[in-house]
C-alpha cells in the first residue's frame, strides 16, 4: 500500500511513520507547513509549524529511509482554521482549532490531495484506534487519548486514515522512538494552540480583533459590575481574570455565563447557572438512527456524562443525564459507547 505519513516533527508521528514502514507499506513522509512565515516562528512555542519542527520531521524521515517533502498548506490553514477561530470568538463561541484542523486540513485537504496523487491512505500519530470496520476508539492511554479531536470526522474521512499508535501508551511510544534511534524520542509534547506561540490567546485575539469594550453584567440583578475591552477574551465557564473589584453579595465566585458579541456584553453569575442539560450540535457526523444511549464529552480530556443522542435533520440533539458545567457554543461534543466513538458535532446551542 502507498501510504502518506503526516510528520509534524514530534515523536508520535515519527513512530507512526516507522510502524507503517515496518508494516511493509511504501511510505512517503510529508510535513505540513501551516504558518505563512515559518522563519518568524523559529522561537515560537511547541507547535506544529516551526522550522525546527520541519527539520525534526526531516531527520526522522532520514532515519526511516523514506522520501520526505514539505507541503505548503499555510493558505488553507489561514482560511479554514485561523480565520474560523477568530470569527468564532468574535461571534461569542469557543472553537477548538485542533478539531477544525483535523476536519478541514489533515483529513480533508491533505487526505484528498494524497488520494489524488495515488496514495492509498494517510497515517498520523494520533492516539486513537481505528478498527478495520471504520470504528474509531479511544487510545489505550487515557491520558493521551485524542479520539475527541477526531470525533467529528465523517466515515469517508476515516476510511483512508490509519492511526498506528492507538494500542500503545505514550511511554511505549517514547521508548520505541528511542530504540529506533529517533532524535525526537524525548521532545516535549505540544499542548498549546500551534499558531499562538506564547499561549496568550486573549492577547492574540486582541491583536486580530482590536479593542471592543463592553459591560460585565450580573445575570441575576442586571447590574453592570465592570467593563472589559473585548468579549473575545472570555470563555463561558471562566472564573479568573474577570477584573471585578468586589465579590458577589453572597460571597460566592462568579463565572462567565454568556457572551453576547453584538452588544459586547459579558454576563456573569453563580456556578450552578453554568449547568447544561441539553445540547444542540450542527455539522454533525452521526451515522445512526433513533435515540442512542451513550456518554458525552464536551472538551478535550474532559469527563464523560451519560447522555441520549438523536439526529434532528442535520443536527444532533444531546440530552445529558447529569449536567456538564461551562460548556460553550463552538466546542465539539463527541459521543461514546464505552471506548467506541459514535459520532459528534459542533455545539450550536445549549440549554439549562
Amino acid at each position, binding site marked *: 500500500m502507498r501510504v502518506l505519513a503526516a510528520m509534524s516533527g514530534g515523536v508520535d508521528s515519527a513512530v507512526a511513520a516507522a510502524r507503517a514502514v515496518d508494516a511493509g507499506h511504501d511510505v512517503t513522509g510529508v510535513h505540513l507547513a501551516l504558518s505563512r512565515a515559518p522563519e518568524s516562528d523559529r522561537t515560537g512555542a511547541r507547535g506544529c509549524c516551526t522550522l525546527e519542527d520541519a527539520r525534526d520531521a*526531516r531527520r526522522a524521515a532520514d532515519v526511516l529511509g523514506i522520501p520526505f517533502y514539505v507541503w505548503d498548506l499555510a493558505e488553507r490553514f489561514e482560511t479554514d482554521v485561523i480565520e474560523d477561530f477568530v470569527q468564532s470568538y468574535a461571534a461569542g463561541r469557543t472553537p477548538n482549532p485542533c478539531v477544525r484542523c483535523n476536519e478541514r486540513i489533515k483529513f480533508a*485537504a491533505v487526505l484528498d490531495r494524497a488520494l*489524488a496523487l495515488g496514495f492509498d491512505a494517510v497515517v498520523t500519530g494520533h492516539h486513537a484506534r481505528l478498527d478495520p470496520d471504520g470504528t474509531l476508539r479511544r487510545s489505550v492511554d487515557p491520558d493521551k487519548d485524542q479520539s475527541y479531536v477526531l470525533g467529528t470526522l465523517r466515515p469517508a474521512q476515516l476510511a483512508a486514515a490509519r492511526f498506528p499508535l492507538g494500542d500503545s501508551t505514550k511511554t511505549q511510544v517514547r521508548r520505541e522512538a528511542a530504540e529506533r534511534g529517533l532524535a525526537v524520542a524525548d521532545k516535549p509534547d505540544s499542548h498549546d494552540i500551534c499558531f499562538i506561540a506564547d499561549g496568550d490567546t486573549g492577547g492574540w485575539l486582541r491583536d486580530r480583533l482590536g479593542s471592543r469594550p463592553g459591560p460585565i453584567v450580573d445575570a441575576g440583578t442586571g447590574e453592570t459590575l465592570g467593563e472589559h475591552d473585548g468579549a473575545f477574551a472570555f470563555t463561558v465557564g471562566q472564573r479568573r481574570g474577570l477584573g471585578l473589584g468586589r465579590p458577589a453579595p453572597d460571597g460566592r465566585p462568579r463565572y462567565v455565563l454568556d457572551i453576547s458579541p453584538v452588544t459586547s456584553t459579558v454576563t456573569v453569575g453563580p456556578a450552578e447557572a453554568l449547568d447544561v442539560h441539553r445540547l444542540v450540535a450542527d455539522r454533525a457526523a452521526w451515522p445512526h438512527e433513533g435515540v442512542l444511549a451513550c456518554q458525552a464529552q464536551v472538551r478535550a480530556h474532559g469527563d464523560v456524562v451519560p447522555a441520549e443522542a438523536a439526529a434532528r435533520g442535520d443536527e444532533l440533539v444531546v440530552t445529558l443525564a447529569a449536567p456538564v458545567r461551562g460548556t460553550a457554543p463552538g466546542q465539539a461534543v463527541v459521543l461514546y459507547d464505552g471506548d467506541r466513538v459514535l459520532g459528534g458535532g459542533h455545539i450550536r446551542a445549549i440549554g439549562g
Partner: protein
Amino acid sequence: MTYLDHAATTPMRPEALAAYTAVLADTGNASSLHASGRRARRIVEESREALAEMLRARPSDVVFTGGGTESDNLALKGLYWSRRGADPARRRVLVSAVEHRAVLDTVRWLGDAQGAEVELLDVDATGLVHPETLAAAIARDPQSVAVVSVMWANSEVGTIQPVAELAAVAHRHGLPFHTDAVQAFGQIPVEVGGDGPDAATISAHKVGGPVGVGALVVRRGLALEPLTHGGGQERDIRSGTLNTAGVAAFAAAATAARAQAPAERARLSALRDDLVDRIRERVPGAVLNGPPLAARPGEPGRLPGNAHLSFPGCEGDSLLMLLDARGIECSTGSACSAGVARPSHVLLAMGAGEEHARASLRFSLGHTSRAADVDAVVAAIGPVVERASRAGALTAVTGG
C-alpha cells in the same frame, strides 16, 4: 536514476575529483613560508592563473571565497560600503528583479539595515533586462548610484542577459557593474576583462568542482570593503586560510568544462530541445517559460541545458514528488529554507500569474546528461501530469 538538476549542483568531474583528493592528502597552509606552504601556495596560484586566463582577467583579480553566495555578498556589501563611504550620497543599489536570492536578500538587507535605496530593474516576459531599463534607472540620478548588479544568466529560466551592453551603460556613468555568473560560467563564454563587468561571481560546484569554493573576480583598483577580517589573505578582501584542495579542484573542473564547452553547448541544446519538444507532444498544455529555444538575432539566448516549463492545473511540488518517486530528479525553482515551494519570484517578475508560477518545473541538463535521461522524462511525464492535475483540480475546487 535520472538527474536533471545540474543547475542546483552538477556531479564532480573526474579531473576535479582527482585534483581534490590529491591535494587533500597533502599538508600545507598556502600562507606558510616553509616548503609545504610554498607547495600549497603554488597550487593556489596556478589555479588562480588558470581561472584568470579563461575569464580574461588578471590573476590578481581572482579572489577565492567560500562559494557563490559569499561572493555575491562580498561584491554587493563590499562595493556599497566602499562607495557610500567615499560619497555618502551614493546609496542607490540597482539590481534586476530576477536575481538569485544571494543577491536579492543581500540588497534587501542593505536597504533594511544600511540605508541603501534598492531598485529592482524590470524584466520582459522572457526574463531579459533591457539596457534602456538600466539606463533610465541610472539617469534618474546618476550621482546617487552605488552599485549595479545583473546576473549573467538566470538560474531558473536560463535567460542570458546582455551583460556587455548593461556594463557599458553603467560605465558611461562611471558606475561599477557586478554580475552573478554562477550559472553562466563553464557553459557560455564569461569574460570579465576589458569593457565587461567590474566584478563577477563564480562557483566551483556548478561547473563540476566541489561545494564550498567560489570566487569573486574583481578588477584590481576597484575598492571593496571586506566582509571578513583576519589574516589578510586574498588582497585583504577575504581573510581566511586558503582552501587549497578546493581551489585546485575548481580550476581543474573549470578547465575541463571550458575545453568541452563548445561541443557541450551543441550537445546539450539538442538534448534540451528534444526534451521540450517531446514533453509538449505528450502534454500539449505545457508552456515553455523564458526565451525561445532557438534564439533568432536580437532575441535573448538561453542556457543550453535549461528547460523550464509550466504545466497548467498542476502544482510544481506534486509533479516533483511524482517524478522523484519514479527516479527522475528536477526542481520547482526556488525553495525556501523550510523546504516549501513558493511561487518563483523570477516568473512573477516576468509577468506570470501565481498559479502559472506554482505550476512550473525546471529540468537542467549537464555534463552527465544523456539521451536516456530525456527518454525517461518523456515516458513518465504524461501519467505524472495526469495525476498531478487531478490533485490540482481538487485544490482549485476547494479554493486553496
